[in-house]
């Protein structure tokens, strides 16, 4: 990396690039890599601070006793990060990863859990790494069922790009030959443990091979790649991996982009608006806000890739070209901000497995099993549309087991220092239908000084973030289809476990706020018609064809598979198209 890679905004002279990429996460990193490798001079804009590979993973090699609070968070952190404390992400090792919620508020017209990481690499550093392809079952669902709008692409359009992405990032997994969960370019899959293998076998037998349990397809290496070592089975991925054992922007796409010499990066810079030339009907660049001194700067480019994470990409468009479209760039269809999706989860089943006491596990596998969708498939028909998958694992009880009801002393200590019974648990991930009324918007309501909504235009002011920028208001919820599916998710898992010999099966459903799945999708969907969609089949904004939106915002439906792999494939495909169109002088 050269010293000039990271720009000092205040003293920089170079303000013109071939391409600007907004956001350095999973999608933005891919856009930067593809565009620089194809010869473009690229500026990558990141609102958070620099977070260098290995050097800045400050807890990654600490032992448990170096943490101070045994992994728990403090009252101060609870106060600063109330949304993060709604779930499992509030853990001592990763609190620095999350955005300060006081600086960056949002409004919840309906409960919405938004987990944000504003720093170099974004959520690519802390993602769950499960990597599955969508199939035509997913791409054709909307049009076949008359839901929302049709996807403008099919599996064959994306398949070659899934190949490119999987080979480059390294996805370990096993081929299953399932048409609705296409196989890919896999490194050797990790192992199921002995209990998971037994349950996989029994589920296969009981359901006559119509249901499948296999090792998760995960962006952790089982073979070395250039500059990256294979997974060391520490299961501390989200602190950053000193071995580069899993895909993140830092471990994978950023080094490739830097190697071209074509990349400049600016951090601490919020993309405030896309600059739009209404005469030529094209974007001309991006106005950024320096988070240190609140000053704004303009950068010009021929094309722009918006990869700020689904809801922030839409926020950026809502703040752009408002002199032409009051609701922002891309709003002419009336769909910008609408059709928010996620995967609903926070429910599942768990139980105990007798026997296997002569077996344990060695190593901490950062992966579990996957059970792909089996409902509304191959003749199966349910009372709701679409489906769900499951993720889980089996393990022996260790010292973290519930001790509230146990005694104290030598017996307790002996119990906690030896492995207990095998247990298994599984969590469902369900598809959420795109619904026009599930939406986000700029919060233009007026608030008085106590934070209450008011109609008094003299004293009331809109809520803003630390830098005086407008904030998002979320108005989305699970609807009938999802709620019906949830009953089935827990019941089917219970039955599968019981049919596989699991004992004392408990079901649980802790409810699901939108966003809690950390798979925000939609709000700038792709489509075939500019009247009903924001983006075309190449992820171009219909109203500004030199602007490409390739993160989760573009999704036309959610499928039930973890979505990040699809964003990467869509980004690589769009970048290839953008460069060829640039060469033809069509952009």
């Amino acid at each position, binding site marked *: 990396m050269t010293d000039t890679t990271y720009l000092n905004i205040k003293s920089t002279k170079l303000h013109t690039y071939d391409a600007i990429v907004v956001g350095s996460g999973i999608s933005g990193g891919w856009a930067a890599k593809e565009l620089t490798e194809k010869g473009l001079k690229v500026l990558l804009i990141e609102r958070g601070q620099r977070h260098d590979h290995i050097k800045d993973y400050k807890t990654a*090699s600490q*032992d*448990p*006793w170096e943490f101070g*609070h*045994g992994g*728990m*968070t403090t*009252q*101060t952190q*609870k106060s600063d990060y*109330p949304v993060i404390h709604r*779930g*499992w992400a*509030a853990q001592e*090792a990763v609190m620095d990863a999350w955005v300060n919620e006081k600086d960056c508020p949002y409004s919840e017209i309906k409960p919405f859990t938004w987990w944000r990481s504003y720093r170099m690499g974004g959520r690519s550093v*802390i993602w769950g790494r499960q990597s599955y392809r969508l199939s035509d079952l997913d791409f054709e669902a909307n049009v076949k069922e008359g839901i929302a709008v049709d996807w403008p692409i099919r599996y064959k359009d994306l398949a070659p790009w899934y190949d490119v992405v999987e080979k480059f990032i390294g996805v370990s997994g096993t081929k299953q030959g399932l048409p609705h969960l296409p196989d890919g370019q896999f490194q050797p899959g*990790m*192992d199921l*443990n*002995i209990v*998971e*293998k037994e349950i996989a076998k029994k589920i296969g037998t009981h359901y006559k091979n119509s249901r499948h349990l296999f090792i998760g397809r995960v962006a952790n290496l089982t073979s070395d790649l250039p500059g990256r070592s294979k997974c*060391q*089975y*520490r299961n501390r*991925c989200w602190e950053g991996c000193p071995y580069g054992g899993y895909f993140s922007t830092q471990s994978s796409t950023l080094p490739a982009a830097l190697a071209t010499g074509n990349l400049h990066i600016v951090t601490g810079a919020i993309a405030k608006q896309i600059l739009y030339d209404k005469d030529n009907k094209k974007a001309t660049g991006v106005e950024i806000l320096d988070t240190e001194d609140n000053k704004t700067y303009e950068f010009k480019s021929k094309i722009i890739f918006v990869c700020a994470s689904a809801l922030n990409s839409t926020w950026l468009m809502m703040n752009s070209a408002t002199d032409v479209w009051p609701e922002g760039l891309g709003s002419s269809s009336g769909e910008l901000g609408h059709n928010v999706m996620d995967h609903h989860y926070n429910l599942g089943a*768990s139980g105990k497995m007798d026997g296997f*006491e*002569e*077996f*344990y*596990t*060695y*190593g*901490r596998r*950062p*992966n579990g099993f996957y059970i792909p969708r089996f409902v509304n498939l191959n003749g199966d028909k349910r009372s709701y549309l679409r489906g769900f998958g499951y*993720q889980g*694992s089996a*393990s022996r009880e*260790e*010292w*973290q087991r*519930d*001790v*509230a009801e146990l005694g*104290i*002393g030598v017996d307790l*200590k002996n119990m*906690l*220092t030896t*492995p207990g019974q095998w*247990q*298994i*648990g599984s*969590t469902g991930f369900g598809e959420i239908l795109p619904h026009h009324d599930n939406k986000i918007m700029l919060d233009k309501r007026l608030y008085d000084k106590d934070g209450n909504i008011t109609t008094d235009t003299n004293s009331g002011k809109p809520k803003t973030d630390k830098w005086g920028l407008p904030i998002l208001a979320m108005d989305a919820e699970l609807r009938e289809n999802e709620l019906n599916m949830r009953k089935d998710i827990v019941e089917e898992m219970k039955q599968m476990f019981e049919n596989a010999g699991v004992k004392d099966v*408990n079901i*649980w459903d802790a409810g699901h*706020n939108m966003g809690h799945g950390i798979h925000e999708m939609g709000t700038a969907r792709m489509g075939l018609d500019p009247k009903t969609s924001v983006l075309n089949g190449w992820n171009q904004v219909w109203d500004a064809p030199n602007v490409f939106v390739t993160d989760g915002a573009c999704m036309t439906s959610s499928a039930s598979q973890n979505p990040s792999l699809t964003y990467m494939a869509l980004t690589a495909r769009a970048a290839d198209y953008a460069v060829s169109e640039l060469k033809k002088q069509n952009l």
Partner: protein
Amino acid sequence: MDRRTIIKQISILTGAAFVGGQIFIQSGCKTDGQTTKALLTNDQIALLDEIGETILPQTDSPGAKSTNIGAFMHKMVTDCYSTEEQRIFIEGLENIKQRFETKYSTSFISANADQKTAFLNNVNTEAIAFRKAKKYEDPEHYFVMMKQLTILGYFTSEIGATKALNYIAVPGKYDGSYPYKKGDKAWASS
């Protein structure tokens, strides 16, 4: 640790949510601010060392006192507990001290291990009964707090992780059918 870990934590979730942890509880959190004055006295911390040692005593590996469990509990209660949880914890600690002295006419610290164990077993029985009667959202019994903190502090300490358990920082591989002999130690982290 990531979202799969919630499977591992199910037993904790369905049993006693970790006090101060707020896991899965979607209520707002009050700010209690940092106290400048130490919450516990040195005598109270010394008493917590003895309580911790009684919960997880020395066996073929050192007990909780060897890890300065009292200081760990003090830090956790100060930094991670709400004001209400702090009050319950401190009152509970004083309760143990007073009741023990009334019953045995000696201080907890200077009593023998059998007396300590017998007494805290009774407190533990009270805590279990208390939990059965309480509503889910009600605060935990102070002895559940002490037990949780002792276990967390001990097994994440260097002594607990490396002497009472088996700790390997970099396993390097995964074996899902690793042979196990009864009595072999469990892993410190997984």
